[in-house]
């Protein structure tokens, strides 16, 4: 005889078993979905990494236009690669996609240093010696004129540095500096000569950011002298001006590039950007431009009124990256780079003309120049260094150089990760 409640018990047991089974199915389903997601993520990351390696090893210009292709001619291995010339460096954008999933990365990249060409100092040979005075230190290999290096007594100061003068190997320099990369110079010439279209006014927002996955946001202020202030500008943004552009200390720039006739960076500015001018760049005191920054004055044609192209840095400026001047006409009035007292430059200085280092100026990296100037109240001394430091050993071993410079090696590496998801 079966109890009357047996059917209820059976139904309850069946319900419990049903619940257990459905939770088992749901757990297995969720686990599988998560696994597939992780598997696709790993595969996309591998593909992104492959894309980065392909871009860093490409020597041609095939990636200057965006290119989408299959890595191994299989499923789920499509990548999108693009290279954007960005001032003295390059920007790479890579996208890997499978089904609805997309991973992207954008980064700047640059060349490693060619140790066979690297030097703390390269001073061209103009048949005259190079003189040091005060507490001057030159650490690293140096290319100096055949006339050699000597101690000098200037401003009541005798030479107090190392007895070897140059702590490193000495080589004879040539009569001309090793040349800059022609392709990159042509690129700059195009930027300065072609008519660049773009917005003529900055938005009134307090920040402007543009991804490198989008087209470049160009602003062209034309002949209006503009002051950029109270704004944060970051990423894929280029500013053009046919006249003077002033950057106030209240503005923050990150990875953007600026092309103008003259640029004034106001005292106290902080940021990392690439500034290019045809006439002059003035960085006022206490500014900090972090790596990878660039200051470049380039002349591709003679100015209407002849005056000296100049990059000047005020007291206590801290700069990390590349400072260079270039004069296509090789005019008599050579471009000038001036570093005031307590200026610290980490990176490279390449001058087609003159470098003027003042008291306690320090360059942790290298200087390639045609001539040095030292000015006191009364006199100008040529090829004299007084109380200055040039130390190539103080430069980080991870420092990467622009392909523009003659010391850059063939190998390219990632300089800075900019965006990723």
């Amino acid at each position, binding site marked *: 005889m079966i109890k009357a409640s047996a059917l209820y018990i059976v139904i309850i047991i*069946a319900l419990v078993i049903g619940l257990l089974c459905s939770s088992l199915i749901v757990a*297995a389903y969720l*686990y599988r979905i998560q*696994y597939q997601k992780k598997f696709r993520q790993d595969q996309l990351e591998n593909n992104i990494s492959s894309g980065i*390696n*392909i871009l860093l090893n490409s020597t041609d210009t095939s990636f200057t236009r965006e290119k989408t292709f299959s*890595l191994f001619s299989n499923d789920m291995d499509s990548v999108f690669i693009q290279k954007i010339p960005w001032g003295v460096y390059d920007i790479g954008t890579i996208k890997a996609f499978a089904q609805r999933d997309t991973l992207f990365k954008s980064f700047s990249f640059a060349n490693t240093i060619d140790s066979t060409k690297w030097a703390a100092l390269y001073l061209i040979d103009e048949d005259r010696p190079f003189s040091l005075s005060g507490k001057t230190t030159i650490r690293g290999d140096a290319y100096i004129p055949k006339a050699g290096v000597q101690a000098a007594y200037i401003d009541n100061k005798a030479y107090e540095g190392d007895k070897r003068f140059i702590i490193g190997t000495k080589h004879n320099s040539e009569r001309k500096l090793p040349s800059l990369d022609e392709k990159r110079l042509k690129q700059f010439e195009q930027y300065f000569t072609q008519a660049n279209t773009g917005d003529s006014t900055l938005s009134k927002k307090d920040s402007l950011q543009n991804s490198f996955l989008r087209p470049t946001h160009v602003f062209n202020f034309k002949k209006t002298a503009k002051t950029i202030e109270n704004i944060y500008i970051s990423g894929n943004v280029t500013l053009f001006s046919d006249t003077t552009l002033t950057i106030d200390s209240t503005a923050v720039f990150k990875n953007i590039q600026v092309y103008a006739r003259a640029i004034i960076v106001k005292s106290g500015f902080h940021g990392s950007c690439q500034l290019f001018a045809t006439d002059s760049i003035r960085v006022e005191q206490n500014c900090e431009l972090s790596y990878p920054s660039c200051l470049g004055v380039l002349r591709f044609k003679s100015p209407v009124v002849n005056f000296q192209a100049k990059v000047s840095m005020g007291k206590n400026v801290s700069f990390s990256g590349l400072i260079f001047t270039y004069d296509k006409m090789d005019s008599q009035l050579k471009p000038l780079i001036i570093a005031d007292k307590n200026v610290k430059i980490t990176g490279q200085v390449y001058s087609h003309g003159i470098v003027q280092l003042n008291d306690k100026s320090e360059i942790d990296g290298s200087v390639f120049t045609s001539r040095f100037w030292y000015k006191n109240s009364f006199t100008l001394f040529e090829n004299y260094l007084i109380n200055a430091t040039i130390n190539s050993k103080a430069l980080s071993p991870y420092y990467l150089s622009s392909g523009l410079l003659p010391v850059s090696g063939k190998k390219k590496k990632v300089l800075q990760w900019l965006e990723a998801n």
Partner: protein
Amino acid sequence: MVIIVIVFGIAMMIYTNVLRLSLSVKKLKAQALLQETMLKAELSSENTTQSVTTGDFRIEQEVKPYQDNAGLTEIHLTAFDQNQQKIAELQKVINSKP
């Protein structure tokens, strides 16, 4: 009694199917092993086509230049189990000289 037996029967069928179709630890292990081998290959400057046995798996490493670019190497890793069945594979383009 009949209902209980039928319910248990269906439950067992679901359980065995879920177990059969779920991911095997072996596959996950093989994929992790391939990732590790790839990392080692990226750091090494002398990668050659070879077959290595690690634990229960045999890993076949195929190395060839990528699209005639001397600076790039294509590495294709495949993991096989003891029954010589393909468990997982991984392909990547790496720098020839790290």
